[in-house]
């Protein structure tokens, strides 16, 4: 029982991290109707920027403090992400307004490749570490209830809290502010939003910046856990089934989808894996999402916007 619960919690924590990335997908989809394949590349890019700036700033400006370096690096990385958002809007999306979804999807694939290339050219392609002082020691809980207790990673708990915080902030932003309302209007219909005077360009820059912000947060947490390297951009491929499962337009869906996939992955690996030859984590999420799509194409919490064929 203890082992099962430990796996369960492990899955929940990993799922939380998937959700963090999935939120980035949902944000852009919700606010501009673009399915952003480049989210993974943005996570890698942001994490690379953060890791390298935190390394460079102390050298450039001659100070020692790790905390200061992290804060400055965070601000600088955020600045970089805003610039990236602006450039993406300027150079790609503004030229593709009102195109079909599929064209935009392929454009974001191109952007993903471009960002991967640029990020590694500027920031290098080794493994870098982000050290924001997250507690590393595992936490022992419920020692009285189970034999051996439950081993929980504090790092994961912090990540979960951060993700929860991010979601609250985003929910308020979307529901309560004028900008959030404009974002939702744009998502519904580009042309209609434009015709009632919503500045489409500015909205897209904002939403890509917000997605950049969530990519940065996800990148920092993943990066401090696993180190920043190219494989980070592949983690985003795990977030795809998450958004499908949760529904493309729903932030709660992204969270719950992430948790389901995280838990499902870990449990299936442990309990089904040995029967199937192991390593089924790779495709489990996808097959789960695929089966789910057949039953409920709009996902758990998605709006029913797919035109059935």
């Amino acid at each position: 029982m203890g082992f099962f619960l430990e796996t369960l919690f492990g899955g929940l924590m990993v799922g939380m991290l998937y959700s963090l990335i999935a939120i980035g997908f949902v944000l852009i989809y919700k606010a501009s109707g673009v399915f952003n394949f480049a989210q993974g590349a943005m996570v890698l890019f942001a994490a690379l920027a953060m890791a390298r700036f935190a390394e460079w700033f102390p050298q450039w400006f001659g100070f020692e403090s790790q905390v200061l370096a992290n804060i400055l690096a965070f601000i600088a990385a955020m600045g970089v992400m805003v610039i990236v958002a602006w450039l993406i809007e300027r150079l790609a999306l503004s030229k593709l307004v009102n195109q079909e979804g599929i064209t935009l999807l392929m454009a974001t694939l191109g952007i993903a490749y471009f960002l991967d290339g640029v990020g590694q050219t500027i920031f290098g392609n080794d493994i870098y570490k982000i050290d924001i002082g997250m507690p590393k020691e595992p936490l022992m809980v419920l020692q009285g209830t189970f034999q051996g207790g439950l081993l929980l990673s504090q790092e994961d708990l912090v990540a979960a809290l951060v993700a929860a915080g991010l979601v609250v902030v985003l929910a308020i932003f979307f529901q309560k502010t004028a900008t959030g309302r404009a974002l939702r209007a744009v998502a519904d219909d580009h042309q209609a939003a434009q015709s009632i005077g919503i500045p489409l360009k500015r909205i897209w820059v904002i939403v890509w910046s917000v997605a950049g912000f969530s990519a940065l947060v996800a990148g920092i947490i993943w990066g401090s856990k696993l180190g920043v390297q190219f494989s980070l951009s592949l983690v985003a491929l795990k977030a795809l089934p998450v958004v499908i499962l949760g529904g493309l337009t729903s932030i709660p869906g992204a969270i719950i989808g992430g948790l389901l996939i995280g838990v499902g992955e870990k449990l299936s690996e442990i309990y089904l894996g040995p029967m199937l030859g192991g390593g089924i984590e790779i495709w489990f999420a996808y097959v789960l999402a695929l089966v789910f799509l057949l039953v409920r194409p709009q996902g758990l919490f998605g709006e029913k916007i797919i035109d059935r064929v």
Partner: protein
Amino acid sequence: MFYRENGQFKSSYRADQQIFPIAQDRIAILVLLLVAFIVVPLGVSDYWMRAILTPFLILSLAALGLNILVGYCGQISLGTGAFMAVGAYAAYNFQVRIDGMPLIASLLLGGLCATVIGVLFGIPSLRIKGLYLAVATLAAQFFTDWAFLRIQWFTNNSSSGSVSVAGLNVFGVPIESPVQKYLFCLIFVVVFALLAKNLVRSAIGREWMAMRDMDVAAAVIGIRPVYAKLTAFAVSSFIVGVAGALWGFVHLGAWEPAAFSIDRSFQLLFMVIIGGLGSIMGSFFGAAFIVLLPLFLNQLPGWLGFSISTALASHLETMIFGALIVFFLIVEPHGLARLWSTGKEKLRLWPFPH
């Protein structure tokens, strides 16, 4: 002045419906084929034959298959690598498990297995489309990656996880030297290109295009979506599967699942986008472009007199690919093929602009 159809009258439906209605086109294609079959094997070095022309031909074939699905039927697929892998591994199993299996038969049977898997993963397309379908095909990609790595049966219990084929021959003729491999692939490509070209002009091709342009309207005028979509998946994955089998058998000789990874899927999708969605010719342009671009990028610094590291070169390559995708989507959504046909149009009017 030289390229126009003036004076070329057709007196039968047959003549009117041929693939290349303009005599100059027919001559050009004949010349191209003659060059490909006779001049190239005589005049090109083994290195070019082995490292550039053969991969180019096989990737063109795969891009052709993908183009049928994405370009003609509008069903985006990110799982091409998976279908290639199915073709390759199935052909391998036919080859090693059945004694005296002819090479061509096992390649085609590999393609048939890919068809089955393709249709299976195409079933979701009946309910979903666009990016949802892209994710569904990604499932195929990850699943086959895993299956061929983990399930020993597929690799004939090879301990290293990689499989190899040797001693290829067709009707007693060995396929060993680069020239033979090249010619073998060329025959496949020519036959399939011709078949595909005819297929997309036929009723079923029109159904695919109607499906792509507006599925609801297509259904209203009596096109069965199930049939149209699944045939597109079937034909596409058959061609892709044969291409995969060729890639494994003829080009690589020995391979492991990584040869058909998700990168391969993206690469093929890029070929289709850059070459031209919905164009047979475009698949060749796209493949040529993507095969040649890395070579060019590797050579360029040398020509300009400075050197860059391989890591930087590969990053630059990804960057340029990404930028080109976006560039093509914005500037010329129909890809290189459209530039080609614009050129031809201009040539028809030349020297008068109207």
